[in-house]
């Protein structure tokens, strides 16, 4: 096979045994790689209703067919897939850097981790040699320090490492898996799953060649994309970076502020991308094989957080800034650094702190609960202290480490209504009350609240639709975007480069064929995208999720935007949500309960998974009778 390594590595952490199986070529064609392949493999290797943090929940690590090549942004990606300890449905998160490319050269398209090691271990994948090594001396270390320590002890500077931090060890539900110091497979708690297996890190050295089916044409295409990447499609990422969104969202009054109490932030100028670049960005660097470079490395030059260095993007900046009412970039950078240190998702961390501050200001939690921290909105010291407490599961941090959904239920006194999440996963930086296409995308996203499963906010923010109105037609818009986004995450290429695929599916299909030699039409590629969304839905349905879970956070549906401006009074009613869901399920060819029909699964060549829906569709029909 070209592009693909053609092999899947199985690691049983309980017995310490490993073996290699050939990659199922039918899966490769149908589910491409990355999250698509990962979700399909997870279904094969798990039993329905598995507890996310139990040894029986497999953790899948997958690269894509493009990983390991020089394809700009595509050579370096990898994905983790498992059952999420937050949503109890699909857990998946991707990261870039230089880990995925190394794994491909080691000769694997995917690694399946099962069971639980008796004591802490790390897996050392050295081409064909796979060993479980003692990790007791690495416990308590940050992912970055773990990476350094493993390189030192194995004696090779170029070894690539993906590791969990102290939070993953303590099963913090928002724990992530970090490679290359600042690159996180962030969302849905994959780090907690890894921690539950006593697996501290995955170290890889790959020495094999990666070859593509049509090298000359491929290199021509690379050249063309290098040129495209210097153009307008990527300008935002190369210049101000995603923090540019701060002022854009603020002007549209669609930037959730102080735990959704507002939709615009009076301190936006202070935390703008413009200010960040002027005062803190020291260098912009790139991932392995990338011709774009987006990683804005920030250094704090003075003040209490002097010397802190980390990458920064809009989402964590928003979460730890406006969402907590904090208007100091140096504190936000410090918060981001702490998230990387403990190994926790920075978006969820900020949203949890915002939630805790809201509880404090409403008197649901008191200063005593916070061990004396004055947790009012805008207190940058409280932000930093609370992130530390979450990372360590210390004091109130022990409850907050469960995520806002569980924390809201445990705290009680109406705290659950302040918990802004979907399917247990914390919201991201788009005010869904006034972005109704995005609201639908977020509600149906198979990994919970997330902008990266559909990008549907673009229709709203760019004014291609009336963002304040819920109407028919949005379902198909979200569906089409989702189908492309799952392909992006299965190839794996970087979402920041999506604009360079001028002809979208046609360009992606050409790339796939040049690399793998597998002929495919753009229509077939689109169906692969659709198939991957369906397999993800089947995952969720098998695990008990359904229409009831395709919903929106409490405040989005009950608290109209109070701020003067273009979004004033906006919120999403149950009727609007129902209209949007019906429209979406219809566009997907699913039942009104959001279950893929047998006809749809047959059409997509997914006959082997029909058993997941059979009983369920029958039951609903009976209920209707």
């Amino acid at each position, binding site marked *: 096979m070209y592009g693909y390594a053609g092999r899947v590595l199985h690691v049983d952490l309980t017995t310490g045994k490993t073996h290699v199986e050939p990659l199922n070529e039918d899966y490769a064609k149908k589910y491409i790689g990355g999250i698509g392949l990962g979700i399909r493999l997870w279904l094969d290797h798990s039993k329905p209703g598995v507890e996310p943090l139990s040894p029986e929940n497999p953790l899948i690590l997958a690269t894509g067919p493009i990983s390991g*090549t020089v394809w700009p942004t595509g050579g370096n990606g990898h994905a983790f897939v498992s059952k999420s300890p937050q949503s109890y449905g699909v857990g998946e998160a991707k990261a870039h850097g230089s880990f995925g490319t190394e794994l491909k050269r080691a000769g694997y398209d995917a690694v399946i981790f099962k069971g639980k090691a008796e004591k802490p271990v790390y897996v050392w994948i050295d081409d064909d040699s796979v060993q479980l090594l003692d990790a007791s001396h690495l416990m308590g270390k940050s992912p970055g320090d773990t990476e350094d320590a493993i390189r030192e002890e194995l004696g090779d500077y170029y070894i690539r490492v993906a590791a969990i931090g102290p939070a993953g060890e303590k099963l913090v539900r928002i724990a992530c898996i970090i490679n290359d110091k*600042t690159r996180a497979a962030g969302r849905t708690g994959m780090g907690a799953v890894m921690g539950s297996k006593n697996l501290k890190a995955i170290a890889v050295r790959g020495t*094999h*060649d990666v070859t593509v089916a049509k090298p000359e044409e491929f290199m021509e295409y690379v*050249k063309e994309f290098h040129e495209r990447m210097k153009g307008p499609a990527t300008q935002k990422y190369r210049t101000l970076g995603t923090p540019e969104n701060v002022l854009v969202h603020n002007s549209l009054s669609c930037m959730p502020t102080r735990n959704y109490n507002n939709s615009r932030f009076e301190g936006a100028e202070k935390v703008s991308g413009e200010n960040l670049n002027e005062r803190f960005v020291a*260098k912009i660097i790139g991932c392995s*094989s*990338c011709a774009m*470079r987006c990683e804005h490395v920030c250094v704090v030059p003075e003040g209490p957080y002097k010397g802190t260095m980390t990458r920064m993007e809009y989402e964590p900046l928003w979460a730890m800034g406006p969402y907590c009412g904090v208007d100091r970039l140096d504190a936000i950078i410090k918060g981001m650094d702490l998230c990387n240190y403990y190994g926790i998702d920075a978006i969820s961390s900020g949203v949890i702190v915002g939630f805790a501050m809201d509880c404090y200001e409403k008197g649901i939690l008191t200063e005593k609960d916070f061990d004396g921290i004055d947790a009012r909105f805008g207190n940058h010291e409280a932000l930093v202290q609370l992130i530390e407490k979450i990372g360590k599961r210390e004091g109130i941090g022990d409850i907050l480490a469960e995520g806002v959904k569980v924390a809201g239920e445990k705290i009680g006194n109406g705290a659950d209504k302040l918990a802004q999440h979907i399917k247990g996963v914390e919201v991201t930086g788009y005010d869904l009350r006034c972005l109704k296409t995005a609201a639908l995308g977020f509600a149906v996203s198979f990994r919970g609240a997330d902008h990266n499963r559909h990008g549907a906010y673009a229709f709203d923010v760019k004014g291609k639709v009336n963002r304040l109105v819920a109407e028919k037609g949005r379902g198909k818009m979200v569906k089409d975007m989702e189908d492309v986004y799952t392909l992006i995450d299965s190839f794996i290429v970087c979402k920041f480069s999506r604009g360079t695929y001028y002809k979208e599916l046609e360009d992606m299909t050409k790339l796939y064929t040049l690399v793998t030699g597998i002929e495919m039409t753009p229509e077939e590629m689109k169906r692969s995208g659709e198939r991957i969304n369906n397999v993800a839905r089947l995952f969720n349905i098998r695990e008990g999720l359904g229409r009831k879970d395709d919903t929106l956070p409490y405040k989005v549906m009950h608290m109209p935007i109070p701020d003067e401006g273009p979004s004033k009074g906006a919120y999403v009613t149950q009727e609007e949500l129902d209209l949007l869901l019906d429209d979406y399920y219809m566009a997907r060819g699913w039942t009104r309960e959001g279950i893929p029909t047998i006809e749809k699964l047959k059409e997509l060549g997914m006959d082997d998974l029909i058993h997941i829906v059979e009983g369920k569709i029958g039951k609903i029909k009976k209920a209707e009778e």
Partner: protein
Amino acid sequence: MVKIHERKFVSADPEKCAGCQCCEYICSMTKEKSFNPLKSRIRVVRINQLINLAVTCRLCENPPCVAACPRDALTQSEETGLIAVDEDKCNGCGWCIEACDYGAIMLHPENKVVFVCDLCKEQGEPQCVKWCPEEALDLVTSDVLAQKARITAVKKLFQEAIKETSKSP
């Protein structure tokens, strides 16, 4: 007769190098028809996020690698300064690797003889320089490097004055 130095080699600008490793992939593709950084004649070092640099052969005067070889497998071209490896003579002992201050000469993972940058003489120009997305790589003489360093140093020294002059109409 005093002569300016004409030997050109590939050098990375630390201000521009983003550590993306494109040069490694391009080099291995050009030379070995595969993507594999281990077969690249240029290697990227990332000390931390801020410190990135691609390193390859500097075509030293009196190259220590050539002097170190006990089997006379390495020779330097007087005209271009390129290091040539006689693959029949080289037995992979690694003394040249030890002698090189830059880690620019390496043992090939498959052939078990050493390999080093030859400025892509078959292709006519170094492909890493041609492809570098950041234009961080350049084919330069040591004199040009010195010029660049001088200009950068003077610019830094007078940055306030330069700002002032660029403001005026």
